Structures are given as C-alpha cells and as structure tokens.
C-alpha cells in the first residue's frame, strides 16, 4: 500500500489505535494509514523469552498473554494516552518501539529499544525490509531495528516487531521515604543505584505530585515521597530489603508496601496518573544526569509554577508547567541546556506544539546526519512529515 502511495508521492500519517494522537507534532499528510488492523502475536517462545507481534497489537493484549505464562514486558511501556487527553489502553506495540518511551524498570531492565530484537517495516520508498532477528544477539550488519526506535514513524512503518520478554518477579515490595527535599531524595536514589541490590524502580515525587498518588497507604500524605521498588524471588527479598534500609538509614524510616500494594502503586506511573490531562498545563519530559535533575527543576521554578516527578533514579524528569504560548519552552530549554540533557514537549495545545520545537533542536552536524538518514529511508518525505521536526 505504501508502495502505491509512494508512487503517487502522497504524504502519509501513520496511526495505531490513537494513544499517541495528542503527542509529538501534528504530521502534515494527505492520507492516514492505520496499523490498527495489523494485530496478533506471531511467535511466543516462553522458554526463549522472545515474542513477535504485528505492530498494531494492543499492549494490554500482549501483557495479558505474557502474564498467563508468568512473564512480562520488562521495560514497562508508558501509555501517554491518559496524560495527553487521548484514549487510555490504546497503546500498540508498534507505538511503544517507535517512541521508545520506557517506564520505571528501565534502570534495571533497559529501555524498549534495549529489548527490541528485530523488525519488519516498510520505508518511504515502499520497500518491505527486515532487520535483526529473534535471537538475543543480532549484530549481523547494521542495527537498523534499534535505529528505528524513537523515530516516531518518520523513517518507516513497522509492521512486525520481535522483542525480549522477562519472567514476572516472584514477589516485590516498595520502601517509601517521606519528606525528603528534592536534592536529598536524588542523593538517596543515586546511593541506591550504586548498590548491587537490583532495585527495579527509583522515583521521587515532590509534595505537589505526591499529593496525586492514589495508592491507599500514600494517599493524602501531604509531603514528598521517595519510592524504591525491589522485585526478586521470595527467598531473597527480605535480605535485600534489610540491606537497602541499612544503606539508606540516614534518610529516615520508610513506609513499607507489600507485593499487592507495590503492584498497584507502580501501575500509576505506567499511565502517568500523577501528571493528569489538563488544558491548563503543559507537560515536559527531560532527560539529564541524576545529579543535575533537582537543580534543573529548581531553576525552572524560578520562572513558573512547576510540578515535577523524577523517574529513573533521577535521570528523567516529568515536569508540568502552566499552559502558555510557548509552553515555557525558552526557560525550560535554557535551564536544561546549561546543565546537560534535553527536553521534549509532551502535552500542549496543538497550536503550541506546532509553533515551538517539540523535540530538542539538533546540533548542525547531527542535523545533517539526521536529514541524511531520513532521506535514505524516505527520500520524498512522505512518512509522518513534520511529526518530529517542522522541516523534516
């Protein structure tokens, strides 16, 4: 179908079930192409921890299939739908890899990109190609499969993806430290990440975002909350908990959440319910070094009201700011760029996302390579034109 559209030089917008409809820039297109019909798991080998699925397969279907065999997607895909005013539960597996938005367990299990093994895709020339495979090591030739992750459908339409899956942990628990200011909390997170205890979630919610937690034990706590998740086999968890508490003794005495409470609590982050949809606010996603994170938020707060949620041991900031003509882009980007990192605008009105850079602007030499890569896949600029950058 794309070959036909390519021959007619028609610009194509690629959509799945609509979870990403309100994120990124709006593509300029003549035709909308939906992968929603490309459904179904085509390979699942639990003993080889590998699965293949057509791109339009909903993530919840994949996760329930995996759960039935005691397995999961270790990278905890994030569903941006609810936070951006799009439907919840509409995330497709193709959308997961094309955005590479990974959840809290990334610090232990890697990102979506890290867990991708192979793809089948169609580029802007209408050519169907494959890259990678179904075994863990897939280095033969250039790693085109991982190269497509995070390209938001601007290089190729993925039709089928093959990825690594993981066993569900036997048990889990959460330690919640309360009342820590951002800088001390980040210190607790980085201290944790330097231990060999394999903590699978390390997040900090300042008072503002902590107030939005729904989990019963933490609801209405009215102070900041710093959360550490342990997931392992039953015989190991108590030992690890005690070691973690000992390593973090100076940060106070934590509230403990059992396996069930832990499950419900961390599910909240999968849909970003602490950053709920509102037309009154915009949402940024900032990648930086943990040691710079609190400083960046502090710098931005000088210019505007901001509500932060730190994930990945401090390496990722979700930041809600008041809606404005530029969504605060100038101040946010300045605060980030002097400290290292990059910022992506996730939620804003369409006209705002059309007028400011949604993705961090590229350095000239990287932009040159980016244009080269785009034109190697899609020389006529037909796929998701303008979805990432206004002029690409």
């Amino acid at each position: 179908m794309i070959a036909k559209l390519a021959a007619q030089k028609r610009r194509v917008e690629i959509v799945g079930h609509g979870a990403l409809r309100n994120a990124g820039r709006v593509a300029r297109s003549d035709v909308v192409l939906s992968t929603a019909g490309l459904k179904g798991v085509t390979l699942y080998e639990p003993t080889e921890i590998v699965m293949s699925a057509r791109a339009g397969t909903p993530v919840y279907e994949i996760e329930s299939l995996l759960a039935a065999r005691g397995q999961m997607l270790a990278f905890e895909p994030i569903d941006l739908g609810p936070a951006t005013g799009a439907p919840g539960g509409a995330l497709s597996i193709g959308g997961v890899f094309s955005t590479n938005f990974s959840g809290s367990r990334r610090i232990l299990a890697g990102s979506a990109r890290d867990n991708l093994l192979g793809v089948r895709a169609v580029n802007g020339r209408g050519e169907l190609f494959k890259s990678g495979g179904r075994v863990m090591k897939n280095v033969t030739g250039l790693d085109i499969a991982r190269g497509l992750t995070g390209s938001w459908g601007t290089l190729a339409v993925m039709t089928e993806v093959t990825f690594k899956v993981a066993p569900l942990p036997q048990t889990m628990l959460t330690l919640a430290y309360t009342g820590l200011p951002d800088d001390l909390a980040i210190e607790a997170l980085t201290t944790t990440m330097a231990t060999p205890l394999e903590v699978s979630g390390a997040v900090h919610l300042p008072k503002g975002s902590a107030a939005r937690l729904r989990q019963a034990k933490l609801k209405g706590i009215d102070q900041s909350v710093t959360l550490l998740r342990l997931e392992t086999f039953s015989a190991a968890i108590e030992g690890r908990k005690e070691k973690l508490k000992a390593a973090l003794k100076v940060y106070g005495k934590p509230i403990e959440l059992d396996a069930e409470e832990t499950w419900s609590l961390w599910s909240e982050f999968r849909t970003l319910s602490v950053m709920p949809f509102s037309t009154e606010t915009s949402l940024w996603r900032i990648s930086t070094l943990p040691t710079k994170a609190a400083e960046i938020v502090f710098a931005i707060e000088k210019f505007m009201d901001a509500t932060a949620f730190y994930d990945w041991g401090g390496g990722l900031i979700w930041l809600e700011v008041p809606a404005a003509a530029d969504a605060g882009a100038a101040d946010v980007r300045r605060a980030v760029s002097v400290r290292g990192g990059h910022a992506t605008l996730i939620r804003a009105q369409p006209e705002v996302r059309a007028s400011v850079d949604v993705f961090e602007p590229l350095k000239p030499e990287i932009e040159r390579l980016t244009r080269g890569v785009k034109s190697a896949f899609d020389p006529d600029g037909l796929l998701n034109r303008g979805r990432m950058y206004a002029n690409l």
Partner: protein
Amino acid sequence: MPHIELPEPDAGVIRRRPVLIEDLKARVGADLLILDEDGRRAYETDAFTAYRNVPMLVVLPRTTEDVSKILKFCHENDVKVIPRGAGTSLCGGALPTEDAIVLCVSKMNRVIEVDYVNRFARVEAGITNLEITSRVAPKGFFYAPDPSSQLACTIAGNLAMNSGGAHCLKYGVTTHNVLGVKMVLIDGTIVDIGGTSLERNGYDLLSLMIGSEGQLGVVTEATVKILPSAEGARPLMIGFRSPEAAGSCVAAIIAAGIIPVAIEYMDRAAIEVCEAFAGAGYPLDVEALLIVEVEGSENEIGVLLGRIAEIAAAHDPKTVVMSSGPEQSARIWAGRKAAFGAIGRISDYLCMDGTIPLAQLPHALTRISQICAEHDLKVANIFHAGDGNLHPLILYDANDDSQADRAEAAGEAILKLCVELGGCLTGEHGVGIEKRELMASQFSATDLAVQMRIKTVFDPTWRLNPAKVFPLAATETMRSGRAASTPEAA
C-alpha cells in the same frame, strides 16, 4: 585458501605514496606514522590470519583532532582507511589492503572521567575492555560486556562489533552498555552522538553506529555505563547424557523464571580438550556439560543453585557439581575460558560464530556433526546457551590445503544452517570479510540496500573499511565511484 576475494589495490594511490606521506606528515607530524615495511607488517592481518596485506602506511593518532586531520586527508586524497583497535577481529574486520591507511587508535587509551554517582565512565576508544573494569573495580563497579579477548581487545573494536561475552544473558551486549560516543566522520567532522544521560535526543544514531564494523566513522571516545558488582557469583556444573537433555534443561530453567547470569554449553569434544588442558574438574563421561552461573548474596546463590539443581534432576543428569567456593569457581571458569587456547594446542581450528534459537540446539548439533563428517573433519562445540550464540570449532591442519579448503566449506555450510534455523550469521564476531558473501543468505537485496544507504549517509564515497560487511558485487558502484551514489534494492 585463501578464497575470499578482495578488490584490486588502486595502483594510482600506491604510486602517489611518497607524495601522500609528505602531505600527511605536514598535517599530523612524522612521529605518528609507521612507514618502514617491518613496522607496517605488524598490521597486515588481525586474528583472521589466513589473509594478509601490508598497508601503505600506518598512523597512530593521539587525539580526536589527529583523527580528524587524518580522515580529512584521506577524504581529500581519495585514500581508503582501515580503522583498527587491537586487531583481535576473528572475521578480518581490520584486514588492510595495500592501497589503504591503517588508522589504529591503540595509543588513545586514557580514562577521561569516571562518575560513580551517575554511573558512567568516559574513555578514549583505544582502551582495552578489561582496563575499564580494572579502573572502576576498587569502587565496586564493572563494565559488563566481557568478550573472551577482553585482555587485549579495545572498546573501539567492541563498538565496531557490538561485542558480547559470557554474561550477556543478564547484562546485554555492547549496545546495551554504551551511552554515547565521540566519532569522526570521513570528512574530518567531529560529532558527539548520545551523551551521558540514559535517553538520547532525536534519531538513535548510536544504535546505527554500534556494530557497524568501522563503516560509518572512527570512534575516538566512548561513554559507557558502569554497574555495581554483584555481591558474589558461583557456578553449577551439570553433565548430561545427550544434547537434547541439556537443551531442555536450559529451557526449563528459563521457564521457571530464573535468568542466570551465564549458561555455557560444551559438547564432549570440547569437554575433553578443556579438561586435559586446564584440569577444571569436568566430568569426562557425559555428552554435554552446562555451566550455569548465578549472582547475588551467599544466601541467594545457595537458594538459586539449589532450585536449578532441582530442575536439572528432572532431565536425567549424570553429574551435578555445585561450586563450593571461589577456588573451585575459578577452576570451572578457567576451563571454559581456556577452550579456544586448549583446542589450539591440539589442532588448528576455524572458530565459527552463529546464533540459533535454543530449541534448535539438538538439531543444530546433529547437523553440524554431519556437515563436518561429510567434509572429513572433527568439530568441538561451545555454545552460549542463554543467548543462542553457537561457536563450532572446526579442527583442521592449516598446512594441508585440502583440509583448509574443506574447513572453510564446512564453516560456510554451518552458518547457512544457522540462518535456516532462524538464527544469524554472527553472534559477536562480526561479518568482516569472512561472512561478507553470506549476507545474501540472511538478508534480501532490499534489506541490504537499507543498510548500505546508511553507510552512504555517513561515508558518501565508501572510503571507510570498504569491501567488508556487504557482498562485494553489491558495493562495487559505491566503492569505485568518486561521486556518492545511492544503493538500489537490486
């Protein structure tokens, strides 16, 4: 041997050698150059030693700026460049041609910065893999990928080949452990790809670069993740009566939700040779041996190894030996790690490197035995069972041309078998010249064109490590033309 075709050296470039040398001296100084024939001969091959060509000259830059000047020189003078780390490639990835310059980054081997709080190390690309771990080990950290050649191989080479190691079942390969690189393009432009934070901005150019076998640019610095070391680790040895039993035991371990840090498989031939060499305490009356290692606290290790032994019991094992402590663990691993050296003492061998889905292991081993028997050769098999990476070692006598030819033919048949069974041509050694022509058995012309177009974006005139990775005939237009041309999907 040798059978692998290499393009005719460009006589015009070789004629211009004296002028080119003067030009390069003026740009980077004479002390970075190796000009005498003996000196250059040290760079005529890598660990794929059947093929040798003395390069036109060798240059050993000390800084990124040196590399930039050298590449700009090559670009302006239309000279081919062979990037090189330690020259440990097993597939001819660093093989020069007589009309090429070898650019070896081995003198760039400093640690630039270690950040224990944010958990990364920034290093120059010529540092050895093991040196990174040695530097951060006193603080309880390590760099995860651990290829067998880690004492010698450089991070530059690891990036080029996306190297793995015995522990990648848990920790992944190079591409999972690198945050960013500084790279020089063929026109001398210095680019920073990725950075120090987990997430990258824009297209994932780093993914395209890692594993590209020196096709896209020359990496001069890398920022790698460093991880806190486990409290302890201990292996368990399980001997089986058949490969099938070993294969189904691996499947059962994973199905039980246990992901060990390593699962190594050895067949009878490999066990015998390694035991004779290293005295590791391997059982000699079994058809297949698994070494399964787990990590954690002493208590956790005990529990996990106990569970694994329980699972193994259902697969009719002949022997189950749990390592009692560091000494025995070291001995068990010494045997496995010495495998290539041990086999090298009794025979010449071709070390193949393919991947297969685990379920295909018994069938693959049967077929490999058949293939080698058909070629009248012996084979020993080592397999990273956790990640599907198979290393059949085909034994032959290098002084016997007929045997050498048969070994190459058997190797080719084995790699094609891997692809047929749903695997890949290479797990961790790369394509180089060795498997270049076999690429067409794994990839369609379109698949290859998609890859080659990326090469053209970074290196429009195909001066960087040309005549490797892609089938020779498919790249001829790009390599011969001075002007950039776009690969077509046949």
